[in-house]
Each structure stands twice: as C-alpha cells, then as structure tokens.
C-alpha cells in the first residue's frame, strides 16, 4: 500500500509519474492528450505505464480543463442576479482595454446581458440594510430563469462580503423554485470587497461548476471501472491537493492546476539539496512559465486575468507566462530586425521539422539545425525530424535576408528567444525586490533543459538545477503536493478601529473551517499548519502588501509585522502615517508524508563517464561546431564533474551543457550545472 500515481493532463501531452515508495520503483509515461474527453488520455497514460491501478494508495491529478473551458467559452449557461442598478458590473470591468496600443477588441463576458437581472436591495459598506431585499422580484426572476433554461444562477450583491444575508436569502428562494440549479452566492466564493472582481470570480465558479462536476463523476467512474475506488485528488492553483468530491464546489480553484504542481515539485526538489531561493522555468511548445520561490515558499498572487476582463481572485501560485517555446516563430520585422514569437506554430502544424506542413522557422528548428536535438530520436513525437527542411527554411527566411550563414542564423534565433525569456525572469525577481543573480534556476518542461544553460548565462545566474524527471515534473508535483485551503475576509479597519476580538474571531473561524475541510478530505496527513496573513497598507494607499502574522496577535505585533514586510519590499518605512488592515487571510495546510527522493535513484545505474557515453555529434556553440559527447544520464556516475560541451539524454528530455560550464549528477539524480568563471 505505498503506490502513488500522479497524472498531469496538459494541452498537448498527458504525463504520468508513478512511484512505489517501498520498492523505489518509478515509472513515467507521456501520451498524447485527448481534448474531447481528457479522461481517455489519462486512462491511456495509466495503461501505457502498466500501472497496477487497483493497488494504488492514491491517485492525484492535474488538469487544464477549467482554463480551457473559460478561454474557449465552453462552460454552462449561467444567469446573474445583482443589486438594482448594477447588473453591468460584470461587463464594464474597471475601465480598461485589451492592449495598450491598438483600439480593437471587445469584452466577452461569461454571462451575456440578457441573462443578467436586477433586484431591489442595497447594503452600505458596513453591511447595514439600506433597501430590504424585494422577494417578489427574486421570485419573478426565478420564473424567467425557468423559461430560459439556465443551469447555474450566480447571485452577487454589493457589500455582500460584510453581510451575506441578502445573497443567501435570494439564493434560498431561487433554490425553492428549482432545486436543480447550482446557486452561487458571491460571498460564498470570496469574502472580499471589489465588486467587479468578486462578481467575476463567482461567475467563473458558476460557469465551471456543471462541467467540472460532470468531469469528476466521469473520472471516478472510469477509474472505478479500472478497479480503483480509493481517493482521487486534484491539484489546485494554490499548490495544494483537493479531494475530488469537494471539487464541485471549488471549481474555480483548479485554474492553474498543472503549472502549480510543477512549481511545487521544483521547489520541493531544490530544497532537498539546500536551494531555497529559486526561479523556476517551464518551457514547453508554446509558452514559458516562470515563478519565484523564496525561502522554500512559492510566491503567491491573489488575482489572475483569465481573459480580457475576466479576473479571478483566488490565492494561486504566482506563475507568469510569456509566449516563448519550442514552437515560437522566428521572423524579421520591417526594420530588418530578427524577432522570435509571440506567434507559435503550436502543436499543428508545429515546427518545420515536424513535416506537418509548417513553413515558418521555429525555435525547435533552430535547435535541430545546431545539433542540439537529435533528429533520429525526438522526444514526445513519433518518427524522425526533417532536418534538411528546417535548414532550407531557416536559410531562406532568416539567414539570407540578414546576410548570415545558416548556423549563425539558427544561433541568432536562440539568442533572441533566450533574451526574451531571461528578461521575464529578471522582471519577476526585481518586482519582488530581489536580484535575480542571487537565485538558482530550476529548468524543466519539454524544452526547458535545452535552454537552461544559455538562460542562466543571459540572466547572470551562476547555477541551475535540472530535476531528475524534468519532462513529467507536473505529474511528479501532483504526487508530492500537500493539502491546502485558503480563506479571506475583508474587514477594512483603520488602525484606530482595530478590534482584536474581531480579528481573533475571524482567524479562529477560518482555521476551524480549514480543519474541518481537511477532515472531509480523508487524506492521510502527518500534521497541520496554520498561517495567518493580513493585507495591509498605509492609510490612503491603494496597493496593499501581504503581511505574515504570528499569534498571539496584538496591535503592536501587527504593526511590527507590517513595518518589517514593508521595509523588506521598499527598503524604507513611512513614519507617522497610520495603517489600515484590509483583508485577513488564513491558510491551512495538511502535510502529507514527504517522499524520499533517494527512491528515484533506484532507476539510476551509475557506471563510469566512458561507459555512460552513448555517442557524440557536432553541435554548434558560440559561432563554431564542437564535437560533443552524448551521455545517458541514467548511467552517469554520481558527483563526477565534467566540463561542457556535453549533452545528457534520458527518456523524457535532452539537457544541453554549454562549453564554458561544468555539471554533475547529484545523489538524487538531479543535474547541477554551473558557469565557469
């Protein structure tokens, strides 16, 4: 009873990571995703790995289903009921536009205007009733909604975060009219002020609920047919897992399911070998996801825009995505300057070398032309790559117009895309007040290990880590993630009005709610941790900062904690300005038994450097070809340092080590590379 399986269903591939903790056996598989019914691909991945499904202790899962449903507008038919005068909050947003330059593009709300209704009711900002709820209007709307055949009714009233009474009452009446409706009061989803963001978050939740519930049922049934009847958990955007039976009411929590798992895994692995401050980079076919981990804790954000004017306010691991990946297209602008991305050749037709009719040169084509990837044994696709075609297209579209040789042109493509990615890595750390050069980079994803060496040089970092299984790291993250629940309550009190009884009561309530949710999950835990944060600012400021608080709470301890955090971020504090406490946040984490990473090494059969060398090929670095040895990483001796250039291959990735760098494989199967100065 020690077998765990994690499956991450991505847009292109479905990855599996399986581990038997007792024997140390690890299996990984990668199959094509099945967008029509993602659970198909999931079952295929289990079959491909010959996983003993009925013996599994836990099955953990990451999925992009929620994100896709929003982007493609494939959720359900939902209605919105609001305070009279405010049904357009969802459509209007905050006075913005899609792009800074260019004035085309429109909002496309998840609930159209003819399905948004108003009822007379009004609270003030203290939650006091100014206009009582007009029950007759609620009932009348209920009748309309029966005729309109909706699946979900979201109820979002002004100031419901202080007093949910009207929302709940209206929900109750609607439920009586049709018990089959999913009723979503905004205050049940988010107890924060900012009416547009709260309404939007509740609408995202409602829009997804029927779909996610159906998906959960379908998945349970499919796994049950495969003789698996134990706990199924889904990874949430905050990096914690959630029992699938609770998913229906938390549908909007899994928006960043897979990517969050990747960061969790990277951070866990790095911490095992003492790296607590890392930047993670997940480079796939179309995008590059970067994230910052400080003192072993992934940075979180409280809001993400899922699409133009569709914000989601939930505690999520802070992941920034830019359009740079293996499929990114290289082109020459009208000024004659080489550019790469953000357009991507995607999975189809994909890079030129895939031979699927792609005619635009991509990053993958450049990697191939330079010998960085193997045309005969590409990872993740069947067959071989067409190197001649890639050479022809790069020559015609990039090299000739710029007056470069083929290889110079291919290398220039890589330099430009690496420059873009390193720029995002720099900004991410600078935004949080840090120097990126103080961090270790953890590179993963299909294309990450190919670019890691150049990226760290570009940013000026010294060291990078490629985890043992970089190609399936999100699946691995599912297996090791803890259980986590986040809560927020807006109290919005100036320092002079802080009521410690109120603050302690809110915190205690949220903690006990977290504990009862953990119990409901029925996941085996080793311990529970509670964390308390406050969103605070100087009075009058609009931006708040997230301040960690330690009990016992007192006015003084809260002020001290604020000043400490503010100083860290901005290098100074502002004397004589009183504080405001906007939101209280509570995080309850159930710790699962950590997995011993040494078990991964059961698959590693260390030999000598000579024996691990499979072959060699000519690879182009910095303007010339080097005869570059190719090693089987799974046979490479541990802790023996070699200097680049070198290539390490394993079943899920190819790692490039550049000439002026050194690397070794550590006791946990990670490859550590350093820049030689």
């Amino acid at each position, binding site marked *: 009873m020690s077998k765990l399986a994690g499956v991450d269903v991505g847009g292109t591939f479905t990855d599996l990571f399986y581990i038997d903790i007792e024997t140390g056996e690890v299996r990984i598989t990668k199959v094509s995703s099945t967008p029509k019914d993602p659970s198909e691909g999931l079952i295929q991945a289990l079959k491909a790995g010959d996983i003993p499904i009925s013996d599994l202790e836990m099955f953990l899962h990451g999925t992009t289903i929620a994100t896709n449903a929003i982007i493609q507008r494939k959720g359900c038919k939902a209605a919105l009921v609001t305070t009279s*005068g405010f049904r357009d*909050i969802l459509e*209007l947003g905050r*006075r913005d536009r899609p792009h800074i330059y260019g004035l085309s593009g429109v*909002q496309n709300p998840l609930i159209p205007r003819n399905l948004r209704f108003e009822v007379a009711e009004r609270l003030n900002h203290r939650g006091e009733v100014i206009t009582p709820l007009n029950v007759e209007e609620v009932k009348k709307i209920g009748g*309309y909604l029966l005729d*309109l055949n909706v699946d979900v009714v979201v109820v979002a009233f002004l100031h419901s975060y202080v007093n949910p009474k009207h929302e709940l009452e209206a929900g109750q009446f609607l439920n009586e009219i049709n018990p089959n409706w999913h009723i979503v009061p905004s205050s049940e989803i988010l107890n924060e002020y*900012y009416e547009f963001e709260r309404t939007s978050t509740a609408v995202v939740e409602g829009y997804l609920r029927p779909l996610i519930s159906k998906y959960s049922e379908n998945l349970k049934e499919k796994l049950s047919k495969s003789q698996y009847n134990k706990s199924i958990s889904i990874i949430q955007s905050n990096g914690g897992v959630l029992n699938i039976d609770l998913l229906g009411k938390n549908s909007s929590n899994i928006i960043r399911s897979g990517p969050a798992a990747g960061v969790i895994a990277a951070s866990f692995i790095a911490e095992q070998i003492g790296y607590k401050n890392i930047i993670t980079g997940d480079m796939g076919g179309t995008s590059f996801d970067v994230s910052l981990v400080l003192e072993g804790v992934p940075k979180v954000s409280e809001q993400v825009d899922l699409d133009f004017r569709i914000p989601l306010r939930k505690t999520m691991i802070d992941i920034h995505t830019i359009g740079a990946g293996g499929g990114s297209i290289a082109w020459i602008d*009208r000024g004659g300057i080489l550019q790469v991305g953000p357009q991507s050749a995607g999975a189809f037709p994909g890079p030129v070398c895939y031979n699927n009719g792609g005619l635009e040169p991509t990053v993958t084509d450049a990697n191939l032309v330079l010998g960085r990837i193997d045309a005969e044994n590409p990872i993740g696709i069947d067959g071989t790559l067409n190197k001649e075609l890639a050479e022809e297209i790069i020559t015609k579209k990039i090299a000739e117009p710029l007056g470069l040789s083929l290889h110079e042109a291919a290398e220039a493509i890589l*330099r430009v895309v690496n420059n873009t990615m390193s720029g995002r890595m720099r900004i991410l750390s600078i935004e949080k007040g840090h120097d990126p050069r103080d961090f270790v980079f953890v590179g993963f994803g299909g294309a990450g290990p190919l670019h890691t060496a150049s990226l760290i040089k570009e940013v000026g970092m010294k060291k990078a880590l490629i985890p043992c299984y970089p190609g399936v790291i999100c699946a691995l993250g599912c297996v090791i993630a803890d259980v986590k629940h986040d809560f927020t309550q807006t109290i919005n009190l100036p320092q002079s009005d802080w009521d410690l009884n109120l603050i302690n009561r809110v915190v205690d309530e949220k903690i006990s709610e977290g504990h009862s949710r953990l119990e409901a999950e029925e996941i085996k835990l080793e311990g529970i941790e509670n964390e308390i944060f406050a969103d605070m600012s100087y009075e009058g400021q609009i931006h708040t900062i997230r301040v960690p608080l330690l009990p016992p709470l007192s006015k003084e301890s809260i002020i001290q904690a604020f000043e400490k955090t503010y100083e860290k971020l901005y290098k100074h504090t502002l004397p004589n300005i009183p504080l405001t406490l906007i939101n209280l946040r509570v995080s309850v984490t159930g710790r699962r038994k950590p997995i011993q990473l040494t078990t991964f090494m059961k698959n590693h059969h260390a030999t000598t450097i000579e024996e691990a060398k499979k072959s060699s090929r000519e690879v182009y670095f910095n303007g010339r070809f080097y005869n570059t040895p190719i090693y089987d990483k799974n046979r490479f001796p541990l802790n023996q340092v070699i200097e680049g250039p070198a290539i390490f291959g394993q079943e899920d990735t190819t790692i490039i080590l550049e000439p002026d760098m050194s690397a070794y494989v550590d006791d946990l199967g990670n490859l550590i590379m350093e820049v030689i100065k």
Partner: protein
Amino acid sequence: MIDNISLAVIKGSLEQVTNEMDTILIKSSLSPIIAETNDMANGIYHPKTGETIAQGSLGLPVFLSNMQFAVQSVINSVQDVSDFKPGDVYMLNDPYLGGTHLQDTQFVRPIFYDGELFCFLANTGHFMDIGGGTPGGWAPSATEIYQEGILIPPVKLYNEGKLNKDLLKVFLKNIRLPEQVLGDIEAMKNALETGESRLLEVIDRYEKANVLACLDEMIIRSERQMASYISEIPDGVYTFEDYLDNDGVVDKPLKICISVKVTGPNMEIDFTGTDPNTVGPMNLSYSTTVCACHIAIKHIFPDVPVNGGTFKPIKFNIPEGTLVYAKPPHSVSGYTEVLGRVIDVCFGALQKAVPDKVPAATFGTTGVMTIGGVHPETEKYFVGVFPYPGGYGGSKETDGLIHGNTPQSMANFMSIESSEHRYPVMFECFKVREGSAGAGYHRGGTGSSYTIRSLSDQMVVSIMGDRAKYRPFGIAGGKDSVPNKVVFHLETGEMVPVMQTKIDKQPLKKNETIEVNSPGGGGYGDPTARLPELVLADLNGGFITEEQAKNDYGIKFHSKVTEHGYTFYELD
C-alpha cells in the same frame, strides 16, 4: 556598421533596462496614480540629439514622444555638453518644455562611460499635487499657467551626486502633499540609478562601440519601419475637422483642423485653420500636439517600436498661437480633452486613406470628475478622482469596446465598494448607457452611466469633460454616437452646467446626486449591412433601442413573452 545578431540582442537588452526601470518606479512610488495607473515613463535617450532610443513598455502612451522633448530641453538648457557631469539629475515640469501638464515632472540623468557622455536616462512621474489654485491640478477655470501650479524649468536637483537641498525645500513648500511627492521623487531617482548600473553592465558586456552603433542603428531601423507603413497609405491629402465644446470659461466651440499629406514614405501633418489659443485651459504645447499625433499613429500601426526614428518620416506644420501650439502663460490643465480631440482628427483624416486600419472615434473625453470635501465621519479632507469610461469606435475587425479608457491613458476606474469605504458617497447605479453607441456594420461601444449620491453636506464636485455638443463620429458609413451629458439633481431641481460638462467646485449637499452619461463610440461601416442576428442580440441585450434596430439597422422583429413573463425579441 553593427551586425544583425548583435543589433537584435543589444536592442533587446536596452529595452529590458527601460522595462526594469518602469517596474522599479511603479513598485516603489508612493502615490496611487503611479503605483496603480502607471502614470509614468522611463527611457534611454541619444547623447547628442536627445532622441528616444528605447522606452519602457509599461509607461502611458501620453509620454510616447513627450519624454524626448524634455530631454532635448535639458540639452538646450546648458551652454555646452561639457556642463553635464556624472551624478547630475535635472528636473523640470514646464509643459512648454517637456509637454503634457504641470503634474508630470521629468528627471533627466546624463550617463557616462569611460569618462564620456554615453546617453541620457530619463523618467517622468505624475505628482498628486503641484500647488496652484485647484487641489490635484485639473483647473477648469484657470486662465494662466501660474494658477495651475509651480513651474520648474530644467534645473539640477542633483549636482554631481549632491542633492540641491534648497531647491527641494522650495519645491516641497509649494505643494499640498509634500511627503507623498518626496516618496515619488526618491522612487524616480532610484529607478534612474538602477537603470544606470544595468545599462553600464550591458555596455560592459557588448562593448561600448557596439552599443553606441546600436543606438544609431535602432533609430535608422525604426525610421525605415515607419516609412514602410506610411508607404502603404495611398498618396494624397486627407483633411478633417472637429470641435471642442468650449474652453471652460467662454462657451464657444473651438475648431481643430488637420490636413495629412502622404507622399510615398513621408507624411506631413498640418494644423492650419485651427482656432487660436483659448482663455480657459484648453491648450496644448507644441510638443504635446506632436505627441498626440504619434499616439494616434501608434494605435493605427501598433507594431512599430517607439524611438526617435519611428516618427522621423512625419513632419509637422503647427501654426503658433493656435490652441494646438499655445505659448506661455496660457493655461494647459484641460490638455487631456484637447489631446483627445487631436487624436480624433488624426483618425478622422486617416480613415479617408486607410479605412481598414482606423477605428471610428472613441468617446473622446477624459472627463475627470473630482470630488472633494471633509468626510463627516473622520473629519479629514478627501479627494477622489473618477476619470470617464466610455465606448470605443467600431473598427474593421470588431465592434467598439464598452467602458474603455482614453487612447492616451491606461488609468482604471475605482471600485464602487472601495469608493464607498473611502468617501462619503453612495453609487445609485453603474451601467451600460443603452442606445448610446454609434450604429454601424461594427457598432461603437456604448457609453457608461453612473449616478453618485452625496452623504455629506460638505462636498464639492469638479468636472473637466467635453463632447456634449460635438459627437464622436462614425466612419465608412457608420453613424455618430450619442453625446456626453452631465446632470446635477439638487434640492433646487435639475441643473445642467453652463459649460455642459465642465464645472468648477459645484457643492453637492447630502442626498443630492450627480448623474454622468459618457458618450459611446462611433460606428464603423453601413449599419444596414450588419448581420440581423447580431442586431437582434444587441436588442435583446438592451445595447440598442427598438427605434435604432428599426431605423438605423432596418431589421424587422416582434416581441414574445415566455410562460413566466420574460419578454424577448425575435426576427420576423
């Protein structure tokens, strides 16, 4: 001559330096206007010409080319370039030297490498107060720039790294929020210093000669790029005119005339025929007018990079003494309205040449509403700023956006719940202004309506708006939209301001309300060609009225009622 690979990589690195300066300034500034709405910009400028080399991507469009004018003014202010010393920081806010309005203050720092002047770094930040007669600086009735705030010509705030304390003291003594502004000054200086050390690293890495060559080459390449876009515009002379309602002091329309002449890769923009500068603050300095045209062109061709070369193919003839080339001491704090109208006439003229690339007019008014007074509960002074949201014009690609910000800005509208926490107000509604969009094959976005109730007897409202008489225009057969409308509901009855949408410090007693209805955007193309299904959806959504569906779009429909009384429309 620099090679193509180095050019691409060094260009990326220089742009990165400016993006990092943006990030630092936004994150460390104190005032919400910089921190929340990015009312700032950072860039790298040419050592000889002062032209923009690169500008950060988070800065507002309104600073697109104004920054370059500020740097050039600093260069012109010294006897000789040898007057620039490492560690100097120049400061200025004179709109006639750096553009925009007095609140936007520029810092310029010469950067040295190997003991030689290498380039300038500069930034600008909007200060929440700049002194003068009206808190915040938007003064609808100002007739001289001296009423709008303290004026700073190019002066050294830092002399070889040493702070000029006396200058700072004088400046801070003249403004209402000295602590906050001091915080922003620190943040701006910090961004310049960080930018300098990052830039020096870039030069170290790629070598001085290469980076210098890149500065010149980037300008040449952008010029070439812009020229290639202009070449695609058919040769010809394209004219347009539009009006501002009034200047806030004298109720008389103000005409802006534009003529755009395209000859191959060159463009000449001429404002001959535009009305003289105004008594009230509806004036632009020369550089702001040029910048407004650049903003319009960048919206039409969003892919062109922004530097000194980008706009070289565009020449200007702006007659002195017009409201688009005012001279000191004319007041300028209504510049947001004039700048918006200049953008409109650029669109209006160019749509005649390239209708596929140009949207119809946006709602065309920044319409800043400022509320101020003493909060009855805290007894503290408060100032709240609500910029107008409105509809965008339809375009070849899409209908117009609803509830957009102005083309020159990215500033957002405050949360209603948060406003009710901060200020003694209660919103009565916040909604789509039905029927306000210009009809078209792609219709404009609707305007927005909102009504605010005062909960205090000590509150005043100021508004600086426009487009009450002259509507945002449709193009290519699309119709004009519905104009701006401001109504006060006072104890004494309804009141529409004399200057329609401009009013200075109107008292709003407890339970009195102000109702604002912003314009929609103009329509694009023949409305009768719009798909009937889309017209029906607009009708069912309440975006258009029954009359508009019938008269403008020409569809035939009837209404239906469901079992429980829900009414909707179907096509006949």
